[in-house]
């Protein structure tokens, strides 16, 4: 097991009849294992994205803890946590995540450049090929479609060569062919390279690539 979440909870303010807050995630325990694809399914608003952000160290939980190996993420200093995220956790967020001032190629190489200047060109070329965006190398994000941007974000996370890869609706903007490409690439990263992959998705197609499946409903996690 690489990543472990213990009794994670996150509340948000919302004026309701009974209380002035609601639980987006409630006492969730989860483990991600090397070489496995874990698929997290659930309806919109069920807390999937909130959970993913907490697992990646981007959103501090109100309760509970997240462990990456021996390191408890939210006890780390911001500098250490950021460096750790850069080295060991790859994230594909929902929506646009490109840096507009950089080309597709530069966007993909960026994580490797932030600390050690390791551009990982070979990995970048490999994943761009695998995801069908090799021809877009010099294009600007503004010139790309939603699907192309999504595949660029996946290629960037894979090029980062992390131990844990967390992808939030990675196939949301993709057609069938590219959905298969993307899911295959993520599965290859898990099965071929031993990465722990978490796929947040509400698409049934994702089930076919899963080693474990969970469902979230009302902030609670259930294994299927």
């Amino acid at each position, binding site marked *: 097991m690489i990543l472990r979440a213990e009794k994670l909870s996150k509340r948000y303010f919302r004026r309701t009849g009974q209380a002035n807050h609601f639980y987006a995630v409630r006492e969730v325990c989860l483990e991600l294992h090397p070489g496995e694809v874990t698929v997290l399914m659930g309806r919109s608003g069920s807390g999937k*994205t*909130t959970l993913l*952000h*907490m697992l*990646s160290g*981007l*959103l*501090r939980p109100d309760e509970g803890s997240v462990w990456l190996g021996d390191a408890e993420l939210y006890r780390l200093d*911001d*500098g250490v*946590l*950021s*460096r750790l*995220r*850069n*080295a060991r956790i790859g*994230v594909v*967020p*929902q*929506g*646009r*995540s*490109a*840096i*507009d*001032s*950089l080309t597709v190629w*530069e966007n993909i*190489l*960026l*994580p490797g*450049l*932030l*600390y050690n*200047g390791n*551009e990982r060109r070979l990995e970048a070329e490999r994943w761009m090929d695998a995801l069908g965006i090799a021809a877009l190398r010099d294009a600007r994000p503004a010139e790309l479609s939603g699907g192309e941007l999504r595949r660029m974000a996946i290629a*960037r996370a894979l090029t*980062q060569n992390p131990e844990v890869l967390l992808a939030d609706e990675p196939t949301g903007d993709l057609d069938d062919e590219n959905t298969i490409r993307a899911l295959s690439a993520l599965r290859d990263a898990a099965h071929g390279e031993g990465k722990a992959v978490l796929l947040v998705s509400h698409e049934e197609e994702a089930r076919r690539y899963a080693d474990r499946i969970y469902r979230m409903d009302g902030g609670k996690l259930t294994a299927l």
Partner: protein
Amino acid sequence: MKASQLPIKNLMRRPGRTAAMILLSALLALSVFGGSVVVRSLQSGLNSLEARLGADIIVLPAEAESKVSFKNLLLQGTAGAYYMDASALDRVREVEGVEIAAPQTFLASLKADCCSIKVQVIGVDPESDYVVKPWIEQSYARELGDMDLVVGCLVTADVGEIMRVYDQRCHVVARLARTGTGLDTAVYCTMDTMKALLAAAEAKGVSHKITSDGRERISAIYVKVRDGYDVDAVNSKLNGHVRKATAVRTRSMITGVSDSLAGISRTIALLVGVVWVMALAILLVAFAMMIHERRREFAVLRLLGTSRRGLSRLILSETALCSLLGGLAGIAAAAAVVFPFTTLIESRLGLPYLTPHAGAVLALAAGTLAATLVIGALAGGWAAYRLSRTDPGTTLREGA
């Protein structure tokens, strides 16, 4: 590509936004540098005037007050044509407390065939003069001979040139350092040369019967008061003892100038202050808008592993680049406005105006640049601080 190139790429990606930031910084630098140079020039001019004047009291013919303002006498060098009998010099020297009394005689040349240029000629007595002589000695170490002229720095005559004054051939032997006053447009000679020029002027029918009666005339007496004597008391005594003359304390003339200078300095400082506050406010709003617009991009950088400190460094690098470019542009623009129009500014303000030396100007430019960078850093730092308080996860969730 290197990660350090990211700020430059970000700025180049949005040229309009970048240009607006640079323009704001340039406006700030222009006002600060331009204002500082003008104020320093006025202060330098006043210092130069005080240092060069040296006299405690000036005794002028009673008629002088109606012909020229005392302030202009000092600042514009409008010495004019007013004369008193040279015996007034002896009367002045009789007054207790007068240490040195140095006479000067004024004559204006004409814009006519007889004169090379229209200029104010000031005759000084080499024996007693302590006002102009030290200043002349900085440029011309020898004694002034007959028909020798030393010209102010703004007089259009070169050293070695022959200048005609009422058809008298005079030799330009030296050029004086700039004072920032109207005296820069005057020429200086000995009293003997002045007598020859006055006679020539009278022969041309343009003077005021100042030599025809055989009595010597002078235009002003510069008095230095002996140590231990009260200048006001000596001034009163002079007014009582010397007939048909007025003794004026130079300090009172300088004070008037100094007051005007203080007023102008205050106004400029206020304007600079207003521009600073406005620029800071506008920069804060502009940076806040920029951060808001790019909050998702910054959240993505956090997601990729950029720390809060790294993000602040990125934002501050962008603001520093804008401030640096704007600061340099503003300083260059201010220099292009202030330096070529020194004479115009001087005549408009009617105050002594002496541009500081290159070292001081460079120091002002460096200070302005530093101030512009500080303002940029404050605005950028505030924006970065606000950004660091937001969870990137929350931003990504909101903007998805």
